[in-house]
């Protein structure tokens, strides 16, 4: 058969998202919208101390309140758990992992750690009962500073004997000592320290859980606002010691996650365990303050990065030392986050095998960290892109020029990097050139010369960042080499119904991305039908039993490709049927616009619709062929996907107030072929704003006693639409050669690129005042203090 290369025009169109009418009108059903009669409400008593021994828990007064069904201390529940809360990424064999139970028994280790729980007939009764539980604590000294934690002055988990969870090294040298030699011989070198502040993911929909026992037999349905229903099913079965086949997990409409719902949480396990114990549905909805304290945080690293360069500014060596802040416990993939960045510290640049990376991760008395939009890769990109600006300053050349001297040339792709990873495609100079044109780079540099004169109170800054993102997680064997506890494949089923409507079953689990729209477009293009005739089924383990869910910009480049491959299988089978019915040789058939035609005989044709019905009746199929038109694929990608791009941010800094105003933001992203450019732009907009938010607004602030001072959205500054600039998007298109759609991920790109672009712009604006670095977030007070310090002022 010859596949036509005539597209139907669906792929690549800016089709409006079919998900949006329900979301915009409030009709979409989130977990907390699901009404189940008789459900009990769970509420947790949470530690007000960052570290405290639990001396006693008196539940009697709470239990006596009206509407309260039961009150449990951690000790009361200890026999419910077959194992501790799961960590699926033991990065080293000797990694320290403290026992982590859904409700703490002997010691609370961060503010918000659960120490008791209540189930009651109403949310109000549960909340009142929480107030009535009397917990006697012995407060212990808390550790919140990473280097202090590393010193083991205070050991958080007695049983571990140290706060050090693991040290993970990645040294890649052509010959022993190559990295040290590169620094010894360097014409230029820089050594920088950057701090990745903790971030609170703050998905628009808080977490919510509903566990519903099914009548007789012990089956349980778990609804959760999760990104990972499949992983949650496996982990819940293991942690609770219940049969996996009796557990069905459904992620209804989910209002964002950004990695924070890529996890297995205490409340999910508690709802299931208590629903089993009480044989009644149990539900829980997070408050925003609980979301700040008891949902994972992102980032949390101290990065020491050193670059060595030759006389032309070409990189010759790279050294990185990280301290990773794990928080109080290891959640699902907490320890692996710094590793995801380890391979990206040279960014888009050519680096010889002179790379020396080491990460030591420590426990602190703060909320556990874990994957947050980009997970390790934004941190790495920030470090190299900030350091490249520092190197440009050191050499005295324009930062764009320095980057151009180091870009991997376009004719070297596919390019085997110093790490051994193969970058499948790239055109960094192309993306940088387009971004520079769009922003008016040359004119801006001239304007900057005239504007940033001594005494100027409005200083112009231009910051750029170029990035490579390692996403589309991931080839299973590569994940195995990193000790990750699962694979990276994705599953798809395509089912042509008798009336030529199509059901697609995907193992991806969208929570705002627009998979229903995008996947229907892929199927429509492949099968020559309307996207309106395609239903996308997902996020229910009874309907889509196989899958590895949605995170790491993987859904399209793994799950979407799996769907395209499955469509090919459907077409193959349909072709056999068509040939049989048309009495033609299958090889003589052409498939185009939903119809098989015999080559050279255009009047001999059969539409897919007719074949679908034939496959259903099975009255006249080729000998030995199974009825129905359906196919399945489980696809393990051969490589990561490697999107890239250049972002340029233009700011004006008010030196009197320290206020940073973003004047212009240009994002040029290359994610290969675009299924739906409207969705791509949306992902870039959201990603850029989230990255900009880290640069200018957001920080989870703890005091030295471990109290979270940003526990509402009044203190934790998630910017609103009125606080951020428009994002001007541009694209180059370099199709991925490793999948048939030529697609790459785009979900995290904006976040990865934006943070360094913004801070580079702020530092650039102030460089004439002697400022070399500005910590994040670059709040007005911080910027004002930095200017004063650079000017020799008191503060």
């Amino acid at each position, binding site marked *: 058969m010859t596949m036509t290369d005539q597209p139907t025009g669906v792929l690549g169109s800016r089709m409006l998202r079919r998900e949006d009418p329900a979301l915009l009108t409030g009709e979409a059903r989130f977990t907390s919208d699901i009404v189940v009669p008789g459900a009990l409400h769970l509420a947790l008593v949470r530690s007000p101390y960052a570290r405290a021994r639990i001396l006693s828990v008196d539940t009697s007064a709470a239990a006596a309140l009206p509407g309260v069904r039961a009150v449990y201390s951690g000790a009361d529940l200890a026999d419910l758990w077959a194992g501790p809360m799961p960590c699926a990424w033991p990065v080293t064999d000797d990694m320290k992992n403290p026992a982590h139970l859904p409700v703490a028994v002997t010691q609370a280790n961060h503010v918000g750690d659960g120490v008791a729980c209540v189930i009651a007939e109403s949310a109000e009764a549960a909340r009142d009962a929480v107030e009535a539980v009397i917990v006697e604590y012995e407060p212990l000294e808390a550790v919140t500073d990473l280097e202090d934690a590393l010193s083991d002055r205070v050991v958080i988990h007695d049983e571990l004997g140290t706060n050090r969870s693991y040290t993970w090294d990645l040294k890649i040298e052509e010959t022993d000592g190559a990295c040290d030699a590169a620094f010894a011989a360097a014409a230029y070198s820089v050594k920088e320290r950057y701090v990745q502040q903790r971030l609170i993911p703050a998905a628009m929909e808080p977490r919510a859980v509903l566990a519903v026992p099914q009548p007789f037999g012990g089956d349980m349905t778990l609804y959760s606002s999760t990104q990972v229903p499949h992983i949650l099913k496996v982990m819940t079965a293991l942690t609770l010691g219940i049969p996996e086949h009796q557990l069905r997990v459904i992620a209804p409409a989910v209002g964002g996650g950004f990695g924070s719902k890529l996890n297995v949480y205490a409340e999910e396990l508690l709802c299931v365990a208590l629903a089993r114990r009480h044989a009644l549905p149990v539900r829980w909805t997070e408050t925003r303050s609980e979301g700040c304290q008891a949902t994972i945080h992102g980032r949390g690293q101290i990065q020491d990065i050193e670059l060595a360069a030759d006389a032309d500014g070409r990189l010759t060596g790279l050294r990185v030392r990280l301290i990773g802040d794990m928080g109080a416990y290891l959640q699902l993939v907490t320890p692996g986050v710094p590793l995801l960045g380890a391979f990206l510290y040279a960014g888009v640049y050519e680096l010889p095998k002179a790379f020396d990376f080491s990460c030591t991760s420590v426990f602190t008395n703060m909320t556990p960290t874990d994957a947050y939009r980009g997970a390790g890769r934004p941190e790495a990109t920030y470090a190299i892109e900030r350091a490249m600006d520092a190197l440009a300053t050191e050499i005295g050349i324009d930062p764009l020029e320095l980057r151009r001297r180091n870009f991997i040339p376009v004719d070297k792709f596919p390019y085997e990097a110093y790490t051994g990873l193969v970058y499948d495609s790239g055109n960094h100079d192309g993306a940088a050139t387009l971004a520079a044109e769009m922003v008016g780079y040359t004119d801006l540099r001239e304007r900057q010369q005239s504007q940033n004169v001594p005494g100027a109170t409005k200083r112009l800054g231009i910051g750029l960042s170029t990035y490579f993102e390692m996403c589309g997680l991931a080839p299973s064997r590569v994940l195995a080499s990193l000790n990750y506890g699962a694979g990276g494949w994705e599953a798809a089923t395509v089912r042509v119904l008798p009336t030529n409507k199509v059901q697609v079953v995907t193992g991806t689990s969208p929570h705002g991305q627009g998979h229903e729209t995008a996947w229907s477009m892929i199927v429509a293009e492949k099968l020559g039908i309307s996207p309106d005739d395609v239903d996308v089924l997902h996020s229910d383990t009874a309907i889509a039993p196989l899958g590895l869910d949605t995170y790491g910009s993987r859904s399209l480049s793994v799950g979407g490709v799996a769907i395209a491959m499955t469509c090919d299988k459907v077409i193959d089978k349909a072709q056999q049927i068509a040939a049989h019915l048309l009495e033609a040789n299958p090889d003589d058939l052409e498939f185009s616009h939903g119809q098989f035609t015999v080559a050279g005989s255009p009047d001999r044709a059969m539409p897919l619709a007719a074949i679908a019905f034939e496959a259903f009746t099975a009255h006249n199929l080729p000998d030995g062929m199974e009825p129905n038109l359906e196919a399945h694929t489980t696809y393990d990608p051969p490589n990561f996907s490697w999107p890239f791009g250049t972002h340029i941010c233009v700011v004006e800094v008010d030196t009197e107030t320290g206020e940073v105003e973003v004047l212009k933001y240009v994002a040029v992203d290359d994610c290969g072929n675009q299924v739906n450019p409207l969705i791509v732009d949306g992902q870039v907009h959201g990603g850029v704003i989230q990255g900009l938010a880290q640069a200018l607004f957001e920080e989870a602030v703890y005091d030295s006693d471990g109290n979270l001072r940003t526990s509402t959205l009044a203190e934790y500054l998630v910017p609103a639409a009125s606080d951020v600039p428009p994002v001007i998007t541009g694209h180059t298109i370099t199709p991925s050669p490793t999948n048939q759609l030529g697609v790459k991920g785009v979900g995290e790109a904006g976040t990865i690129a934006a943070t360094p672009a913004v801070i580079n712009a702020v530092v650039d604006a102030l460089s004439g005042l002697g400022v070399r670095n500005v910590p994040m977030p670059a*709040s007005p007070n911080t910027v004002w203090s930095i200017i004063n310090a650079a000017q020799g002022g008191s503060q």
Partner: protein
Amino acid sequence: MIPAAFDYVRASSAEEAISLIGQYGDDAKLLAGGHSLIPLMKLRLAQPTVLVDIGRVSDLSYVRDAGDHVAIGALTRHMDVENSPVLREHVPLLAHATSHVGDPQVRHRGTIGGSLAHADPASDLPATTLALGATYVVAGPNGTREIAAADFYQGYLTSALEADELLTEIKVPKMHGAGWSFQKFNRRAQDWAIVGVAAWSRGSEAGVGLVNMSSVPVLATSVAAALASGASIEDSAAHAADEADPQADLNASAEYRQHLARVLTRRALTEAAG
């Protein structure tokens, strides 16, 4: 975000409200627009046992030209203050400052009296009415009394209102064409000001109120005195923090607040004079 249990009674008139809060005493709180009180209750930082809802006392919602001043009913919603033609003509500083309160949702529910009675130094309107020399009319079981804005604010979230009194009206002197400026410095548009400055000036006469510069809204009298004595705007603004005693918080150190007050006062006076 579930408040502790409370009783709810609705007053149909100011007199009934005063009688009800007299009856319930310290455990009662008046509920107007609810945009300060309800969030505190949801966080259980406030746990009144009775709410006396005055939201339907419709005769306290008005803006009237009263000759030398404009009279504003305490239950007038921010949106109606912001859009009042009378205020826009005679007290444009107050109408404009009100447009900076919260977000549109807050301004459609919140009331001027509720904001003033809450006595939050970080709110825009206490400092603005202070700068304008407003007088508050307060009703109690023994009739009404008037309190100058300058005497009203006694401490953090504490005012001269007695427990059984109700703020009923705000009298704001007309500005008679004075220049004015409202400078609100914050990180997000809908937030409270890190520092705010409400200022008017006419020649060497001026009034400057500071938002979030102390435990109470601050009248920057030293600035007005310096201007009156003939000092330049620049030199006068240097006194902006003289009466202030700012706190440090996540957004700003005390020193930075003092610096901002001086910068913003200079900008405000310059704009007002322009």
